[in-house]
């Protein structure tokens, strides 16, 4: 059975690109258009991997990532961040939220800054879930 990857992004063009790369590489896909919808699908579908954007309506990837990594039931969810927001900003933001009293969260396994080539994305996915 093929591994399941959830793409969380508000840009339909990015979703189309990611889904086509994933399907060409034999993965099955799910999509969500914002962090809130993404969290719901993670809980319902338990994907093997989440490809997560940062700047989105309703809930950002920063907050969704934090929810995943501070929840015992969800912390094992594998995540690749794919965003136009710089990795440095992502890490500073998480640090600020930790200082405001949130739990500390690990760095993302892989952080890709948009745009990425198909090969680079496929390689990153393969390196995490095979």
């Amino acid at each position, binding site marked *: 059975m093929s591994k399941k990857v959830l793409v969380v992004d*508000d840009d339909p063009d990015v979703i189309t690109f990611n889904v086509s790369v994933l399907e060409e590489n034999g993965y099955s896909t799910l999509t969500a258009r*914002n962090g809130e919808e993404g969290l719901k699908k993670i809980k319902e579908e338990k994907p093997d991997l989440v490809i997560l954007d*940062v*700047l*989105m*309506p*309703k*809930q*950002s990837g*920063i*907050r969704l990532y934090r929810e995943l990594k501070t929840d015992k039931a969800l912390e094992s969810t594998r995540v690749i961040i794919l965003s*136009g*927001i*710089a990795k440095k*900003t*992502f890490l*500073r*933001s998480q640090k*600020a*939220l930790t*200082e*405001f009293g949130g739990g500390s969260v690990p760095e993302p396994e892989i952080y890709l800054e948009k745009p990425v080539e198909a090969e680079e994305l496929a390689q990153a996915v393969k390196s995490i879930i095979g």
Partner: protein
Amino acid sequence: MKIEKLLFVTKFEELWFDALQSLLDLRMAGLNHVVFLNVIEREKVAMHRGTGYRKEEEVKFKEMANIRFIDWAEHLFEQGMEVGAYITVGNLVHQVISACEKEGVDLVVIGRPRQGKLEQIYSGSDVTEIIRRANIPVLVYKYLHPDAQHSERPFERPLLAMDGSPASLLSVKYLKGLKGVISEIHVMNVIEEKSLKSASGMTVQKARKEARSRLEAICDEFEGEGISAKPHVYAGKPVVEIEKAARECQCTLIVLGSSAKGSWKERFIGSTPEALSVKSIYPTLLIPPGDA
């Protein structure tokens, strides 16, 4: 009443990031989430004879907005704030109301309407329609306009124009929630010209005394919250007198109820709030009457 989530509507020509930064004082009153909205007018990408829908134009405008929003978002994210963004093609009023509903924001910030030589930034009717349809406060910000009076801290010294309507009473409640952001508030009431037409000066003086007494009671409420407050009575045309009071009291913002009517449904914008939102040189915060 808190301002935790704010919708910042920008066409970039009018409201830039420094305008948003000047509102970040609201963090002291609970602001922790900013949602950006950029609406690309349909006419900019609409079909023209022989060209069809101009997808390339849409991509260009969306990416231009995206580049700005990423830059702004990075700044806010690093301060531990939550940020979201919408870049859409369509009707401004519809997109603003739709974003308000989807996000459940507490305040809408929009630029001042004006007619440029080359392009219409926002039409007065768009702003009026947003104020009419939004069931939350709307701040018409006049940040970069050459005639505008603006402060680095717009909520520092608001002028609250009271008319006794449910919306203006709700404004009191709303501003009391901004303790820590407001350093001094000026509360005013305008005795309209028609009330001045009397055979006796005593009648006019009585009206002034009553108005002053009501304002003092409101000031006491603010003082009770630790916000310094001063009452002022003016007489004449409300639009003119409110603007005059804002200048005399060196205020940074005008706050008033958006309607003299209490009912939500079929609500009309009062002529005074409408005129001030469009014409005043001061940022104008319009508070709707609520569900009362």
